């Protein structure tokens, strides 16, 4: 497997995983700093184990038992649906229609909720374990999904995607452990925008390949598709800016 294919698998897995790990780390930090570290670390470890089992079973089944063109069709469909969901939200966030993701605010809310629940020092902190497990599993499911999709092209791609995700996890956890505060400096909203565009691009490219369409220059078409998706997103943000009164911020959830 060539270097380009490995980079295609590892890069989106790294960026998307970094974003999701930042979100999961915020919750685990909130639990750890308010209720002690043992319970949330056990919850996070159990969730990581669950995710490893999901990636191993689904990933192996996809790579080994499904014909390549069918696999490309399935992965392309899922990536397109997933990518459009991220891209739409990112466009609406940049246009001021949906509130920007704010780790500091999420952290404060989580700490307040956890303090309100109280805890007994003598018993195992099940609340801490469950909150941490759910946060890591929920955010990690998106990571697992991306790793499986980008790794579906073969064992080499799967390994590259897993390493991309693991590298992101190690970096985010190391920085969070050192700072012991939510990682607000990470430009999450911008990264989500980029990931949404990348997932949409690969969804279109792989679904096209899966149904037998021809891309000029094969993978060389990917930057062209990505460029057009990014231009479309930029035009969409500008269009929404023109549609709303100047300076208006709606921040509504259901639009």
């Amino acid at each position, binding site marked *: 497997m060539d270097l380009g294919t490995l980079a295609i698998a590892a890069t989106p897995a790294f960026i998307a995983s970094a974003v999701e790990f930042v979100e999961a780390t915020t919750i685990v930090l909130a639990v750890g700093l308010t209720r002690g570290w043992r319970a949330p670390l056990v919850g996070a470890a159990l969730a990581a184990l669950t995710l490893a089992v999901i990636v191993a079973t689904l990933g192996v089944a996809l790579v080994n038992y499904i014909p390549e063109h069918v696999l490309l*069709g399935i992965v*392309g*469909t*899922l990536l*397109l*649906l*997933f990518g*459009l*969901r991220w*891209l*739409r*939200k990112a*466009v*609406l966030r940049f*246009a001021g*229609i949906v509130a920007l993701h704010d780790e500091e605010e999420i952290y404060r809310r989580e700490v307040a909720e956890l303090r309100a629940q109280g805890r007994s020092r003598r018993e195992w902190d099940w609340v801490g374990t469950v909150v941490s497990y759910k946060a890591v599993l*929920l955010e990690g*499911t*998106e990571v697992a*999904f991306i790793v499986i999709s980008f790794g579906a092209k073969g064992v080499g791609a799967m390994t590259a995607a897993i390493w991309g995700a693991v590298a992101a996890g190690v970096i985010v956890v190391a920085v969070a452990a050192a700072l012991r505060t939510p990682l607000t400096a990470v430009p999450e909203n911008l990264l989500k925008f980029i990931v949404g565009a990348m997932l*949409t691009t690969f969804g*279109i*490219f792989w*679904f*096209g*390949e899966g*149904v*037998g*369409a*021809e*891309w000029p220059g094969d993978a060389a*078409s990917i930057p062209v*598709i990505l460029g*057009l*998706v990014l231009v*479309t*997103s930029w*035009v*969409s943000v500008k*269009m*929404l800016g023109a*549609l*709303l*009164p100047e300076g*208006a911020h*709606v921040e*509504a959830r259901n*639009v």
Partner: protein
Amino acid sequence: MSSFLRGVWDNTYGLLVDDGQLAIGAIVALAITWIIAQYASDALRQGAGWLLLVMVIVLVIANVYRAGQNARRKLKRT
């Protein structure tokens, strides 16, 4: 058990679908691409990928435009 299964379903659905109309539009675009790739002439089949890209671009612009209109209505009401 049913609430657990409902939770699993909600999470899986939420992972892929944020806006139902966008998801349905994407599936329709994929279906059109697949039909063209299966049954159309060679020239059309080879360009099916670009057609999918165009449909996705139109879909995104139409969807966020609708979201913008809804947001503007909400602003006018408040």
